[in-house]
């Protein structure tokens, strides 16, 4: 029996960061339908703090979600988390910068600040009904010992959903596999690990596959692999390449049909 794995589609969030792509609310709802019909179980709807139009669109998506779980994306920022809670999603995903270049150069903060901010955001979410998912941004250029510290904190708080992002697409399959094994062991038996791969060196599918072979259960994808720069792990390519190894609950034909519908939506249909 093939191991069960799960798609977390982020076409509506990260996919829209592609410079030549912009979705109207109506288009997003059609894409949502296409993904649900294909059997995608979790759909990342957007960033509620981005602007009021986006927040209202996320609310519309949540109203229409059917059996799919809807997650929303937040920076490591309590104000952003509040916008997420307002939308009443199934899952709030908080992206936590973990590499030194992100902590010290982008945020201009330090590791202590990151840990404190993480506790503040999680504290805010504990009063809501949403499941908490934590993402380690730029995990494959990060100090593994800092990630161990954070996973221990998450474990103590009872948080088991953790996603590792290869933010600039520089990981390789062996590095991916080893990192998932190490952090998965630290998070415990109930860990729900996810991978968010970018395709800068053409390895997004390969890195996702390697993560899945080493304890990861959730794979972030986008239709046609759209996304910032070179894009994300391509939904159809991943199902095609790994369908013989994993049970996705989605057939290749269903995935290809969703992609076909997506192309029609992009063309204004």
């Amino acid at each position, binding site marked *: 029996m093939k191991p069960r794995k799960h798609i977390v589609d982020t076409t509506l969030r990260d996919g*829209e*960061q*592609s*410079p*030549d792509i*912009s*979705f*109207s609310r109506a*288009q997003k709802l059609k894409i949502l339908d296409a993904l649900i019909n294909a059997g995608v179980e979790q759909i990342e709807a957007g960033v509620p703090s*981005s*602007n009021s*139009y*986006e927040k209202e669109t996320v609310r519309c998506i949540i109203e229409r979600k059917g059996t799919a779980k809807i997650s929303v994306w937040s*920076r490591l920022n309590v104000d952003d988390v509040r916008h997420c809670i307002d939308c009443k999603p199934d899952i709030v995903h908080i992206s936590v910068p973990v590499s030194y*270049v*992100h902590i010290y*150069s*982008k945020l*201009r903060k330090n590791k202590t600040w990151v840990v404190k901010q993480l506790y503040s955001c999680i504290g805010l979410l504990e009063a809501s009904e949403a499941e908490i998912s934590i993402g380690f941004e*730029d995990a494959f250029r990060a100090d593994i010992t800092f990630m161990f510290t954070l996973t221990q904190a998450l474990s103590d708080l009872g948080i088991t959903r953790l996603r590792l992002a290869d*933010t*600039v*697409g*520089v990981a*390789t*399959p*062996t590095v991916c596999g080893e990192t998932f094994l190490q952090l998965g062991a630290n998070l415990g038996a109930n860990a729900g690990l996810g991978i968010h791969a970018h*395709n*800068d*060196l*053409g*390895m997004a*599918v*390969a*890195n996702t*596959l*390697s993560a899945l072979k080493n304890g990861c259960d959730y794979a972030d994808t986008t239709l046609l*692999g*759209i*996304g*910032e*720069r*070179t*894009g994300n792990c*391509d939904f159809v*390519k991943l199902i*095609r*390449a*790994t369908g*013989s*190894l994993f049970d996705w609950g989605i057939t290749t034909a269903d995935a290809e049909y969703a992609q076909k519908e997506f192309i029609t939506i992009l063309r204004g249909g």
Partner: protein
Amino acid sequence: MIRITDRTLSCLDKFDVSGGELRDFARLLATIGVDWIEVSEKAYRLMGELPEGGKYVLRLKNANRAADYRDFNRFVCRNAQETADDNVCAEIVLNDIHERYTFARYSGYKSVRIRGLDNLLLQNYTSAFQQIRDPFSGFVEMCPSNGAYCATAITAEWILSGGSDVVTSFGGIGGFASTEEVILYLKLQRVRKVGKSYPEFPRMRRALESITGLPFPHSKPILGDHIFVVESGVHVDGIMKQPKCYEPFPPETVGQRRRVTLSKQSGTESIRMKLDELGLSIEPKQIQKLLSAVKKKSIEANRAICDEEFISLTREFDASV
């Protein structure tokens, strides 16, 4: 020592290509750090002469015809079982690592090329690499196919496992690992000393597009013309502070430049960067209002807004612009 054989010029036989175009491309390949340039017999006939600066491999249809080509001292042939010419590399096509029983036929060869293995990463690739190396005393080239979208990754893992010879094609033409992806991997991982930058990549992309009539996707790794276009406010902010935050390497490394587009996802840093790019300035207190106007227009138009539209919006806040 890691050696790259680029096989682009043996993948173009079905296209209407001139000898001049092939020679130009060979000259460019010689500048980007590939060690050997593989050409087909047809390509060699069209080229007439081989440009200086490169080392060449000829792809033979018949291994016994190597002696007919005195310009070459290295050959590769898919049907090489019947020759004992030490200069001919036998290309062995494997769909699956379990087909390695065929290796016995090639035990006398000084060099072999393993082509295929699209699905290798689904299996235990570390032990598979060992099973590939063990039967051969000479050198073994790895030429993975891209049917499972993993050819560059297999090439990288072969190198990490100690493999020294890899076969690629520019842009992945023909369904192989992309030469430019492997070169950037080697550069970023500091696995091999490679060039500082590759300003000729865009020219090579255009040359190949002209030959094949097939444009590369805007998002094609390394080559795509939109891969350094930044839209999200979070990313623009990060890049303004430190480009490494959201770029694996500087755009100039591969002959490109960074551009900012404005949309409903933009932030104040995007506005500042675009004003700088266009040589404009407005009162700092107006930037937030200008951002709101940009987002509103982008939502109404359901697309990013162009420079002319941005200039027009900016004038609404500052008539002197």
